[in-house]
């Protein structure tokens, strides 16, 4: 067994494989399939201060090698989470991370303060890149000034590991990454979904109730990989790679490009066991290539 453990700031991961927010429920939905404590970390679904019903159905469109979603952060709010879900998920023997969302800086702060009280949550992922909400969301992630501001303010009230999740819908993602790093982000995760659209030619209508939605899955992998590579060269903090990872080879590509860890998203829908399979696949690859530690693989791209 190769040494897969890696630290992201104060966060200690037994391996670099996490699940992506919004694609893994609260983790408990996977209990039937495998022991989620095997993972490096699990990212809970996007959480807001108050209950959100999300967008109208239809919220999904299948696309070539991918899918669009327009869930819109449906969740019951942080108080419900603390009361009903936290007790269960804090039993897991892995890092449980909350994906923090707000429509104003104040909301981000208030939510973060509440999460800060939770002993068993060692990190938050600040989602400034949700394309499916009317207010806030992606607006924070596509504007340097706003990305800086929300990171700075949240940093003030949060001392544990602060990961900022970046939007790919920008001209220069490295610029945003550098900006949030300068404001105190301990890590950046990328990418969130690409803003896309699907039309039903038969009905002449948009497929999604919200017209546009977020594109995920292998279709976006080449762009996500490029962005991770660019950001890894632009910042000093560890980078978490996300986007269309379907198997161990994909995950290894992100790590070679400079990611210290990866998140598995849409692939969970197709194969609920995929995240453990990927851990095993990375281990096999490292043994084959005689790499002792995952550190030998991170940014190992040869040019």
């Amino acid at each position, binding site marked *: 067994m190769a040494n897969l453990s890696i630290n992201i700031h104060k966060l200690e991961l037994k391996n670099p494989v996490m699940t992506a927010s919004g694609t893994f429920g609260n983790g408990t939905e996977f209990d039937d399939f495998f022991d989620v404590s095997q993972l490096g970390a699990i990212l809970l679904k996007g959480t807001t201060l108050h*209950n959100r019903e999300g967008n109208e*159905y239809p919220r*999904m469109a*299948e696309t070539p090698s991918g899918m669009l*979603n327009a869930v819109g952060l449906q969740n019951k709010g942080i108080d419900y989470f603390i009361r009903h879900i936290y007790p269960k998920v804090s039993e897991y023997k892995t890092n449980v991370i909350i994906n923090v969302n707000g429509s104003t800086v104040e909301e981000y702060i208030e939510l973060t303060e509440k999460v800060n009280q939770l002993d068993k949550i060692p990190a938050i992922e600040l989602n400034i890149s949700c394309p499916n909400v009317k207010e806030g969301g992606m607006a924070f992630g596509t504007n340097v000034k706003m990305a800086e501001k929300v990171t700075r303010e949240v940093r003030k009230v949060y001392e544990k590991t602060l990961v900022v999740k970046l939007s790919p819908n920008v001209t220069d993602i490295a610029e945003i990454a550098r900006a949030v790093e300068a404001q105190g982000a301990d890590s950046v995760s990328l990418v969130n979904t690409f803003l896309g659209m699907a039309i039903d030619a038969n009905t002449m209508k948009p497929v999604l109730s919200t017209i546009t939605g977020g594109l995920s899955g292998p279709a976006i992998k080449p762009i996500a990989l490029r962005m991770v590579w660019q950001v890894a060269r632009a910042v000093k903090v560890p980078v978490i790679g996300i986007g269309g990872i379907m198997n161990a080879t994909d995950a290894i590509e992100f790590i070679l490009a400079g990611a210290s860890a990866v998140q598995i998203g849409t692939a969970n829908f197709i194969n609920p066991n995929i995240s453990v399979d990927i851990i095993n696949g990375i281990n096999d690859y490292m043994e084959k290539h005689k790499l002792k530690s995952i550190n030998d693989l991170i940014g190992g791209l040869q040019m």
Partner: protein
Amino acid sequence: MNKTVSDLTIIKNTRLNHDNYLLELQSYIKLEGIIPGQFVNILVSDSQATFLRRPFSIFEVNYHQNSISVLVKVVGPGTEKLSSLKPSDTLNVIFPLGNGFSMPMAKEKILLVGGGVGIAPMMQMAKDSRELGAEVHILLGARTKMDHILIEEFSRFGTVYLTSDDGSVGVKGFVTNHPVLLQNNGFNQIYCCGPEPMMKAVAKKAKELNVRCEVSLENAMACGFGVCLCCVTKTTGGNKCVCTDGPVFNINDLSWPI
């Protein structure tokens, strides 16, 4: 039984008519306690047009031979591919998924209403209800005589009534035009699966007749086990996932304008 991801082997693929196929799948994991109305989510590999899994109602469970069958209506690339599979081909399947119908009690008089491929969950429902001692009536709707399938199989478990849009068999019109639904026949429960307009019409009728009614929805799904939140339907308790809180809902819990 617990949800599982498993490779099932096709034992038989029967062409029922021009666009319906019955696939019988051998399981290597012991099947137990599957509830009528539950569904499976099938990975259609080897097809460029299908990225996500495809959900299908469990048509029948054969505990004896440890197999389940699904009724597949060809509507697109995924179902096309499934219809072309042959015995000994394997399929990767997540199952059993969803809640299933609330089963009737002995002596209850129940009506199962299936429209189009919505008849799929009704076979196991009819079988199990009959076994529980209920009096089973089955109303099947389709476009034409040619589109009606499996009538004989259904009639093994209850009295079958038919409608067709063009009147080529049974009562002409929609299922809601059939006397068995129009009159109060003393049903204790109505169970329905089919196109949404049909289910709404049946739900309305059930409400008028003051009969308890469950419908099985077929919202588009990405995961099928409650993690993507794509498949929601509005209920009196907010948005609920059709794949886990459903696919079967009591019509009183849905926010349908009926």
